[in-house]
C-alpha cells in the first residue's frame, strides 16, 4: 500500500507534474529534462528518482544514455481512478477541520 501513497505524493508536487507532462511528449535524458527547469540539477534528479520509484516513470538504457519514459499504464491507473475520490474527501475533511477549529475557539 505504501506504493499507492507514494504515487499520490508524487503527483501532488507541481514540478513533478510538469516533468510528467514534459516526458509524456517524448522520452528524455535527465539532462534534457533538467534543461527545462530553473531548478538545480540535483533537485530535478530527486524528482526523477521519486517518479521512478513510484513507477510513473521508467528508465531505459540506450547506448550510454539513460532515457526516462512515462509509464502509461501506471499514469492512467492513478489519473482515472482513486485520486479524485481521495481529493473529494480531503477537501471535505479540510473543511471539517477548519470549521471545528473555529468552533473550538468560540
Amino acid at each position, binding site marked *: 500500500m505504501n506504493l499507492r501513497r507514494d504515487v499520490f505524493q508524487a503527483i501532488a508536487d507541481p514540478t513533478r507534474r510538469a516533468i510528467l507532462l514534459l516526458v509524456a511528449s517524448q522520452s528524455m535524458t535527465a539532462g534534457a529534462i533538467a534543461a527545462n527547469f530553473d531548478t538545480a540539477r540535483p533537485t530535478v534528479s530527486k524528482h526523477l528518482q521519486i517518479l521512478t520509484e513510484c513507477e510513473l516513470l521508467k528508465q531505459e538504457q540506450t547506448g550510454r544514455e539513460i532515457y526516462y519514459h512515462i509509464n502509461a499504464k501506471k499514469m492512467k491507473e492513478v489519473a482515472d481512478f482513486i485520486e479524485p475520490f481521495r481529493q473529494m474527501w480531503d477537501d471535505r475533511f479540510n473543511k471539517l477541520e477548519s470549521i471545528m477549529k473555529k*468552533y473550538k475557539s468560540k
Partner: protein
Amino acid sequence: MELKTKIHAEDGQQELTITREFDLPLELLFKAYEEAEIVEQWMGTKVLKLENRKHGSWQFETRDPKGNVVFQANGTIHEFIPNRKITRTFEMDNAPFDVQLEFLEFEGVTEETSKLTMHIVYRSGELRDKMLKLPFAQGINMAHNRLQEIVNKLKLTQHDKA
C-alpha cells in the same frame, strides 16, 4: 508534502478504507459528525434528517441555485457510540447503485489530535469502482485535471505512433 487523507483500495476488492488524522481533539471531530448544522457546512449538503441512535435514519439533499435537487442520499444508523463509532448504511437516491455499509471509527491520537477510519463495503468490486469514479465525472479537482491533461496528451502521442 504529507497527504492527510489516505485511501486504501485493493484491486478487485469490494471494500475500501479512508483514513484521516485531524488536528482536533476527538470530541470535536465526533461533534462534526453528530450535529446536523455542522455536517451541512463541511459536507456541503442540506441535512433533512439525522437521528443519531440505533435504528435511527438520516437523509441529505443538495439543490442547485435554481432549487433543483442534484443529490439525495439516505441511510439507517445501526450503531452510534459517542466519540467511538458510527455504523450506518448509505444509499444514493435515483442512482443505479446499491446501498453500501459504512463503519466509522473515531480515536484520539493525542489530547489535541484524532483519527478517523472509514471502512466502506460495497455490494461488489465493480460497484466500488463505479462509485470511485463519480467525483472524477464531476471534475472537481484542479491538480487532477492537469494530470488528466497529461494522460490525454499521452493518448494522442500513442495515437501518432500507431
